[in-house]
């Protein structure tokens, strides 16, 4: 019997696959395409205090082995998420991670308060890494001090497991990771998207309405693996590794780099059945390799 289950700061996951924030909405769209229970946990769309309508189009653009997006945190706001979206998502019995994004430290605290009153949330994920909003977002994640304060702001009001999602755009992700843990993070998510842009050579203008966007997809996987490999050795908390996962091999690579769970982001946009395929392939892999507990692979690339 092969055991794919894992544990993140006391949260039991049936398997290590996590629906990454931003490609899963609040699960309503995905429920029509696949089975939410294929995931070990799900992270909902970045949720802000007030509703946000998002950035002007074009919002997406394909790039070599990846894509740029500048959605701009389109979401219905914390109140609707808390009252309608999360209660609906609970029915699947899959651990729910609520990704929250604030413009200020006070907003982060308030988001912690709002979601403390909602049943069935396994963890909050502090988004200090969105590159597509003009205030807040990635600004908090580029500097150790502000990342520490953002984490601490949620920590004060939210007593459950706390995740901080890190950006790969900072020059020293290990320093930021340490600051997040010091601020109260029980788990780290990495990485969010890399800032990029594309120019339309016909119109001679930037493709995206917001000019720059976040790069995701297989193109960023080596950067993400490097980040997980470095951070996992520097901190004691478990890591949700992500960036360009499109097969079970990528999942294994993240685990070996030091991740405890692995996010699926842009890959889900191409193949909604990806988690199902990956789970089947992981089982086959464990069978062939004689692995009983998949979680024993975590960090093997540096543990020796």
């Amino acid at each position, binding site marked *: 019997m092969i055991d794919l289950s894992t544990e993140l700061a006391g949260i039991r996951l049936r398997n290590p696959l996590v629906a990454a924030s*931003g*490609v*899963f*909405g609040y699960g*309503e*769209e*995905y429920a*029509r*395409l696949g089975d939410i229970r294929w995931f070990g946990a799900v992270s909902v*769309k970045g949720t802000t205090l007030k*509703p946000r*309508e*998002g*950035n*002007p*189009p*074009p*919002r*997406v*653009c*394909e*790039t*070599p*082995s*990846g*894509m740029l*997006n500048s*959605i701009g945190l*389109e*979401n*219905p706001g914390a109140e*609707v998420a808390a009252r309608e979206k999360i209660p609906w998502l609970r029915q699947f019995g899959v651990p729910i991670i609520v990704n929250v994004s604030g413009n200020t430290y006070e907003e982060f605290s308030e988001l912690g308060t709002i979601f403390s009153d909602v049943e069935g949330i396994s963890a909050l994920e502090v988004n200090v890494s969105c590159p597509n909003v003009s205030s807040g977002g990635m600004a908090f994640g580029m500097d150790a001090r502000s990342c520490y304060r953002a984490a601490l702001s949620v920590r004060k009001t939210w007593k459950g497991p706390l995740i901080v999602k890190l950006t790969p755009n900072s020059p020293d992700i290990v320093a930021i990771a340490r600051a997040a843990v010091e601020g109260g993070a029980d788990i780290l998510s990495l990485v969010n998207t890399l800032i990029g842009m594309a120019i339309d050579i016909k119109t001679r203008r930037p*493709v995206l309405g917001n000019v720059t966007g976040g790069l995701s*997809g*297989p*193109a960023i996987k080596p950067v993400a693996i490097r980040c997980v490999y470095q951070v996992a050795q520097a901190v004691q908390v478990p890591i949700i590794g992500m960036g360009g996962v*499109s097969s079970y091999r990528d999942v294994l690579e993240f685990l070996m780099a030091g991740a405890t769970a692995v996010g699926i982001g*842009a890959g*889900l*946009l*191409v*193949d*909604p*059945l990806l988690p199902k395929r990956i789970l089947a392939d992981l089982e086959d892999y464990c069978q062939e390799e004689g692995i009983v507990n998949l979680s024993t692979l975590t960090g093997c690339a540096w543990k020796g």
Partner: protein
Amino acid sequence: MRSPHGNAPRGYSEAGLMENSFAGGGPVETQARIVSMNIEQGGVHTTLLYAPEIALRAVPMQFVQVKVAPLNDPFLRRPFGLSRISPEEGIIGITWATVGRGTSLMGLWREGDTVSVLGPLGNGLRTDRVLRTNPGPHGRRPVWLVAGGTGLAPLYPLALSLGPHCRDITVLYGARTAEALMDTSLFETVGCKVTVATEDGSAGVKGRVTGPLGHLLASFNGPLSSNPPLAVACGPTPMLRAVKAMLRDTPVELYVSLEERMACGTGLCKGCAVKAAPPRSGYFHVCSDGPVFPAGEVLLGGEGQGA
């Protein structure tokens, strides 16, 4: 004002002309076999795919997402409107022109190859309901299909399903030149009256498709209000904007089929945003709220921004 995001129920869905893919059991991902690859008049390709589950579920004006090549580059699927829907044969068709990397790779497809197709996606038009609404004193309401460029292709399944029930379908079709015109004989076969316009006058009426549309509108002066036509437009955004402007203060009920840069096609990413027309605020998403919209519900291109 209620913003369109957040899955708020919307008026036009309740009107019942549009139907999304989930009513028929939801979209499926399938390895579709390429039945034929034809280069047609106008320099477009029509690829027929054996995808019985999709053919059974699809309604006219829905689309599919095609992975043009395996592996990760090109990364995203490509959206294509359905130019054929044949549930009896289990066949769907996509009609495409070579415009970029994805379609260049599609030129390498061969009969017998299989490609991953996800669909049907988006809201299509339920033709039985189209015909049922507002039947005027003269029987079925007239239908006007207005197309530009390759926008003609997805209107064919619509014409085909309306054909047996509707004696009055007019196709107005515009292209740059005679060489760029797609074959319209399929529409004529199912009984549509076809008027063609080319910008350089090399075939049909000289000028844009709004020329013949103006004539049609003028000829309908009398009976128009008692039996208002239903118009469906598919083509480049400037054409849709011009058609919408021309029909704005008339009783003609206009639906537009939109395109926007799209990633997932399934509603997950919120990428393909189109601005909602006042009094709504915020954005719709072409893949999940469209691709067909009542023209009055959306702002097309620079429309409504003082442009």
